[in-house]
């Protein structure tokens, strides 16, 4: 019974064909490519507005060199937020619950920021390993601690997104099965459980958007340190 709860996260296959390919490629149908016309339809206007506001928000504190990353970080945000939100619909699979996917994005991009920093301004990048104003005796320990925290960053990024989404989906499944099984036995309690389920779903919508934003925001912060 316990293990059945995690079955929803198995990578779906149908007769040996991995359905992950469908789960990853079909959401982009929702993003039509704008043509060269000045007045677009509502869908494109909303998407343009969203992309512009996101870019202004993220790249305002960054120097000009970092603005080259706008396309990469915007694409990443669109990717994550779409997959997260679509996964809240019933009978859909959320690829971002897979640790493989989140680590596949976190590790290379984080490594890029570190390597860029080491190549362009090695002293400045290494300087981040020692906070300003530390007492002289604490310097060796603190450098070790800061190095460990540097290397834990990609792991934290990937696991944060995976864990948040997995926990949310698990809770939704648990509470929904609770409400379903309680309904013939104790309808009043089932009603309360359903209210809880509704509020939880609202929370999960918020979490889906916030976690995608936090992922990209943290990557932009790591970039600001190193560029």
């Amino acid at each position, binding site marked *: 019974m316990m293990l059945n709860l*995690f*079955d929803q*996260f*198995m*990578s779906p296959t149908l007769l040996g064909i*991995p359905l*992950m*390919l469908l789960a*990853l*490629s079909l959401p*982009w149908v929702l*993003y*039509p*490519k*704008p*043509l060269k016309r*000045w007045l677009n339809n509502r869908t*494109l206007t909303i*998407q*343009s507005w969203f*992309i*512009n506001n996101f870019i202004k928000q993220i790249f305002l504190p960054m120097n000009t060199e970092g603005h080259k990353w706008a*396309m990469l970080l*915007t*694409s*990443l945000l*669109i*990717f994550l937020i779409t997959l997260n939100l679509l996964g809240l619909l019933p009978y859909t699979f959320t*690829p971002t*619950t*897979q*640790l*493989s*996917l989140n680590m*596949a*994005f976190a590790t290379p991009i984080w490594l890029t920021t570190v390597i860029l920093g080491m190549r362009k301004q090695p002293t400045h990048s290494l300087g981040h390993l020692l906070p300003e104003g530390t007492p002289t005796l604490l310097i060796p320990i603190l450098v070790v601690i800061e190095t460990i925290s540097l290397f834990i960053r990609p792991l934290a990024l990937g696991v944060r997104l*995976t864990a948040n989404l*997995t926990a949310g989906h698990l809770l939704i499944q648990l509470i929904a099965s609770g409400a379903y099984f309680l309904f013939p036995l104790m309808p009043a309690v089932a009603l309360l459980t359903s209210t809880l389920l509704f509020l939880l779903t609202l929370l999960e919508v918020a979490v889906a958007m916030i976690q995608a934003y936090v992922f990209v925001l943290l990557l932009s912060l790591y970039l600001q340190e190193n560029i």
Partner: protein
Amino acid sequence: MPQLNPNPWFMIMTFAWLLFLIVIPPKVLAHTTPNNALPQKVVCSRTESWVWPWY
């Protein structure tokens, strides 16, 4: 936990990155925004009245 099954890890990584590099950037880059109009540069030209006949 089925997420820790290493079998489809490489396939998921490759396919996700392929989509992320090939499909999404053209859609994102195609969103262009026009520059904001500057109200000072507006020139109201004086037009003359209609002096030629209809036909």
